[in-house]
């Protein structure tokens, strides 16, 4: 566990800074109150609102680790939300709607995975297709309007409380834990990193590369469908135009803040989740401070710029020198 804290150190400091800024803006931010069996408080709020991006980041991290990218997750959110709304409106029970939405995510992910693995399209190109067409498909299902629904079961995906926590928080945490277990308690994580770092060496070592590649896109689609369900339940309607709009970028950013290189290789589900929480924390802080929410975009740009400079090969030697000097000073 100490290894994780070492790896997470810089992000934890960043998170602490973001939380401190939140406290400075709203002094009671860290307080937790239990009202009618449900916890309320700033941190719960961040997790609750951040749940969709956390889910997307959970799906995106393994994709990026294989040197890929999934631009279509926002569109998949919209499709999944639309499918869920349409099916409760057609008279199906909410569990059927949930399963239908998840199935849709699966199929979308499979489509991406097949284009990347079998047809060998560049991931950015392959997922661009669904990114463009997906929103059209969602609009076709909702017939161009916000498809509202009154089913309390489906709405409960966003508003229900379980164990004192809002359901989206629990879903995000459960997804993070299941994915984390799936990649670290099995050999999937090792295989994903091997395929992402050196596809040829991985193949010669017997790693089933095609299955791994398709799998990560399918998982990303599934996570996007979950996020889409939450987004639709939140407004009790499927908004094909705006559901998940630009969230793929947030998810990619969260994964990059989580330390995964866009050139593939090492990845961490927990650090990517941390990245998503930091992003949501920044957003919340700006909102609470009454600052224009637009500042958030500039701040995000600054954060990526920083990460890019730090990750760039040109800066690596300088950073290595700096850390050895710091370490030496620490030892002395």
């Amino acid at each position, binding site marked *: 566990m100490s290894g994780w804290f070492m790896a997470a150190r810089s992000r934890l400091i960043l998170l602490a800074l973001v939380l401190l800024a939140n406290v400075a803006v709203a002094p009671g931010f860290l307080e937790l109150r239990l009202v009618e069996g449900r916890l309320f408080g700033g941190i719960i709020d961040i997790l609750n609102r951040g749940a969709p991006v956390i889910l997307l980041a959970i799906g995106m991290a393994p994709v990026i680790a294989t040197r890929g*990218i999934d631009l279509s997750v926002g569109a998949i959110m919209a499709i999944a939300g639309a499918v869920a709304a349409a099916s409760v409106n057609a008279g199906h029970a909410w569990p059927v709607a949930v399963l239908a939405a998840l199935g849709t995510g699966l199929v979308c992910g499979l489509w991406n995975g097949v284009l990347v693995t079998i*047809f060998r399209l560049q991931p950015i190109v392959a997922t*661009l*297709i669904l990114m*463009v067409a997906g929103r059209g498909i969602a609009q076709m299902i909702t017939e*161009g309007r916000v498809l509202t629904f009154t089913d309390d079961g489906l709405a409960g995906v966003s508003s229900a409380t379980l164990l004192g926590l809002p359901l989206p928080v629990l879903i995000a945490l459960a997804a993070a834990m299941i994915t984390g277990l799936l990649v670290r308690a099995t050999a999937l994580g090792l295989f994903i990193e091997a395929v992402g770092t050196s596809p040829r060496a991985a193949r010669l070592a017997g790693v089933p590369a095609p299955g791994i590649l398709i799998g990560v896109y399918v998982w990303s689609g599934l996570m996007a469908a979950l996020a889409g369900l939450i987004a639709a339940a939140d407004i009790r309607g499927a908004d094909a135009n705006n559901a998940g709009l630009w969230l793929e970028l947030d998810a990619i950013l969260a994964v990059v803040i989580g330390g995964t290189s866009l050139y593939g290789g090492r990845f961490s589900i927990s650090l990517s989740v941390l990245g998503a929480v930091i992003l949501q924390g920044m957003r919340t802080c700006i909102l609470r401070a009454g600052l224009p929410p*637009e500042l958030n975009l500039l701040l995000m740009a600054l954060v990526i710029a920083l990460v*890019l400079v730090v990750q760039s090969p040109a800066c690596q030697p300088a950073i290595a020198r700096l850390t050895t000097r710091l370490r030496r000073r620490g030892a002395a």
Partner: protein
Amino acid sequence: MMRVNARTLPFLATLGVFILLYALCALQYPAMLSSRVIANLLTDNAFLGVLAVGMTFVILSGGIDLSVGAVMGFTTVALAVMIEGAGLHPLVSFTIMLVGGALFGCGIGAAIHWLKAPPFIVTLTAMFLARGAALLLSTDSIPVRHEFYQTLSGLSLTLPGGGRLGLIALLMLLAFVAGGVLLHFTRAGLKVYALGGNARFAGLMGIDTARTTILVYGVSSTMAALAGIIFSLYTRSGYALTGVGVELDAIAAVVIGGTLLSGGVGGMAGSLIGVLIQGLILTWITFDGSLSSWWTKIAIGMLLFIFIGLQRLILQFSAPTRRTG
């Protein structure tokens, strides 16, 4: 002189699709043949066309630019603030925005080259930066009432049949001609193709890849600023959320126009047709009245898929077989 080969096939396919689509439209709605509709097609899609000119450079060089929509949005707001707020003459404001756009793009190109970062993520950062800055300037739509705008919008060429080709449509056509000349008839243009063909080989052949990368993104951002000016003239207002997602339309237009997303193959004329196909689908849906707008997205997605698949097949068959050593 032009021979049919694997390189020109996607362009010819695009041209075929356009002609077929136009014929179908004209068959159903003969009014679509009128020069008024044609003029409107060009005018309504002028900003997209100008963006596609810049995007053609970027994609040919093997890159991608996600920031163009945001730069366009920023330009419309900044123009409104400069003209209405600071009282600058529109021409002065236009010049400032074009120069500023060029510098911004050069910065993007420099970051891509020297940080060795993927263009995707660098231009994403630029997109956040430009959109954030635009929203900071104003979150509301600011109308531009300067009389010079009136003068400019009065300028037009009257086509036979009564269609009026306005200034912004002419600007777009001019951008295509200038971009085409730069791309196809100058040394710099060939360097763009070289970079997109294989950056390492281009370096071995003595091409300055840093300068070429900077040039490419400089052109793209300048075109995005020009698209902003055009949009400002078109709507006579500035709004920070102008052009959200329009970068995808521009990319789609370029790819449908026969340019390989992996770079190195394609041309300017195809991009114009790619823009017109998108415009035509929209026009058709408007004429039809019963079809909904989401069909545009599905149709564009399908065209993208078909063209990317076509390119993939062509690459597969035209690639020389490699032997191991």
